[in-house]
């Protein structure tokens, strides 16, 4: 059944969940109705701080099991899988861009990508790495360590690393909230451009209303107080 779902990927939504809720320490931190995101349909999860955006992303990535409801990625029920199968599904389909980038400081940009490529796809393709680095405009900094990169260069490297595994879904948690207007715009531009070029679908979580106009599809999370009331 899972296999059939995977094969008919063209019609199954890339991300979908039924009514989903999650409680931590006996407090409901996330309660949302069902939602679907088709492949190619870049989406934004918008909500104030504490509204459960990171929690939702963790559920989608299979890092957190929701208290009730389930999340399906590419037709497979992430929440129902065993830990190892979750790791495999995430590895195959999801690329992550972290707010703090999380590039490995001991490795150069090129090596960071090579490691992700090795972990994600079990192969080493230097040509693809170089091409992707060039695509994000980092060719001249490919052999620099992350410490030596500017904030913008680091973000480019982080996006390149998320894409090197050829994920169908690129998830970014607060990619712009710490950036000034022009940098935030540049970051979103780059995400759109590279995702479109590699055929990946974006799912961006943020409280940064500046990027709201860039997305046609938006999932708005209510402030914690309102969720509790609901």
């Amino acid at each position, binding site marked *: 059944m899972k296999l059939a779902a995977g094969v008919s990927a063209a019609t199954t939504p890339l991300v979908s969940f039924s009514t989903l809720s999650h409680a931590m320490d006996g407090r409901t931190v996330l309660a949302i109705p069902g939602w679907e995101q088709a492949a190619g349909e870049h989406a934004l999860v918008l909500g104030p701080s504490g509204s459960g955006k*990171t929690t939702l992303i*963790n559920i989608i*990535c299979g*890092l*957190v099991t929701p208290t009730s409801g389930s999340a399906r990625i590419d037709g497979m029920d992430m929440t129902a899988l065993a830990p*190892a199968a979750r*790791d*495999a599904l*995430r*590895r*195959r389909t999801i*690329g*992550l861009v*972290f707010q*703090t980038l*999380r590039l*490995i*400081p*001991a*490795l150069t940009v090129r*090596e*960071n990508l*090579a*490691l*992700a*490529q*090795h*972990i*994600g796809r079990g192969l*080493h393709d230097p040509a693809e790495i170089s091409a992707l680095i060039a695509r994000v405009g980092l060719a001249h900094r490919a052999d620099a360590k992350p410490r030596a990169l500017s904030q913008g260069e680091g973000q480019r490297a982080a996006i390149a*690393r998320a894409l090197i*595994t050829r994920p169908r879904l690129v998830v970014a948690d607060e990619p712009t909230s710490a950036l000034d207007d022009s940098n935030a715009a540049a970051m979103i531009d780059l995400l759109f451009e590279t995702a479109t070029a590699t055929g990946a679908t974006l799912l961006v979580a943020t409280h940064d209303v500046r990027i709201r106009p860039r997305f046609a599809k938006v999932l708005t999370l209510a402030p914690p107080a309102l969720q509790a009331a609901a």
Partner: protein
Amino acid sequence: MTLVGLSFAYLKDRGLNTALNILLLALGVATLVILLLFARQLEGRFTRDAQGIDLVVGAKGSPLQLILSSIYHVDVPTGNIPLSAVQALRQERTVAKVIPLALGDNFRGYRIVGTEPAYPAHYGAVLSDGRMWDKPFEAVIGADVAAGLGAGLGQRFLGSHGLGSGQSPEHDATPFIVVGRLKPTGTVVDRLVMASVESVWDMHGIAHDENEHEDEPDEAHGVMQPEVTALLVTYSSPLGAIQLPGFINRQTNMQAAAPAVEITRLLSLVGLGIEAVQALALLLLLTAGLSIFVALYTALRQREGDMAMLRVIGASRASIFGQILVEGMLLATAGALLGVALGHGVIAAAAANFRQLAEMGLDAGRFDIAELWIVLGALAIGAFAALLPALRVFRADIAETLAHSR
């Protein structure tokens, strides 16, 4: 870039810390290797030189001194014994072989031994060139002597009295002539100059059968009688061990000492010292292990975010666990190999600078199988030091780590 490559990158990233930990481990390994090689080679040399010699008969005194001087040629002899003892012992039914040794002289620090061709033969020595001695003052030299002096056949030299390298005036008697050189045997024979017993007597002006000076009265030689320093005895039956030593020690002016007994005693004394240093070296190894543990532990605390990220992009717990273990093992391997190299280097330097050590047969080029155990031990310490920090991978919750690390 594999996870092993990542281990290398992390080690390189904190290079000074890595270097210090490798050095710390290497020092512990080197100390153990030095002790091991020293003890093993000493023991090997001791047993090889004493092989086939069941009993040493010499003048009364310290039995250990008798053994050291007559088998290993490292101490001064206890005195001399009458030549007649040779014949007397050879008539014993329990005795297979008696080799007489006349000691007391040296040439440039190499001891001159008055003996019979049976002596080099006992150690399986064969001539590399020349022939055995058959007249007084013909000498056959061991391989180390030949190499050390650069002496060739036909070379003449004067012996000096005493056993150290010659402060005492050289005998102004007849010079020795080298008639033969021996191939290396790896035994004490390599470091000796061998000639007939009569040569040694002549050097000291002792009358003997072959030198019949009928025209000179005996008084010209004072009271000196033909003597030898020690006899190396091989039994023909185990009965010899029961009867002979007791008889000699009680009924004669001589003493009999069994090499096996004395060497065991000596090695147990040396062994105590070695064990003490060994304990210190083990402590050093454990310290190195602890230091690796601390280094990995603190490094991993800083890398929690890295690890969570690797987990998120799809690395399994097992592979990250393995990566940390590899990091510890790389440190340990480098430390162990450096330690072995250092150990052999120190032994080479010691043998080059201290002649006594070289004479003991200390050889930096020989590896001992037990070194493998030391290396494996160091690797185990490295693995164990990495194990505890690595186990954290299995406890850590990724989502939580991501939330609380940068």
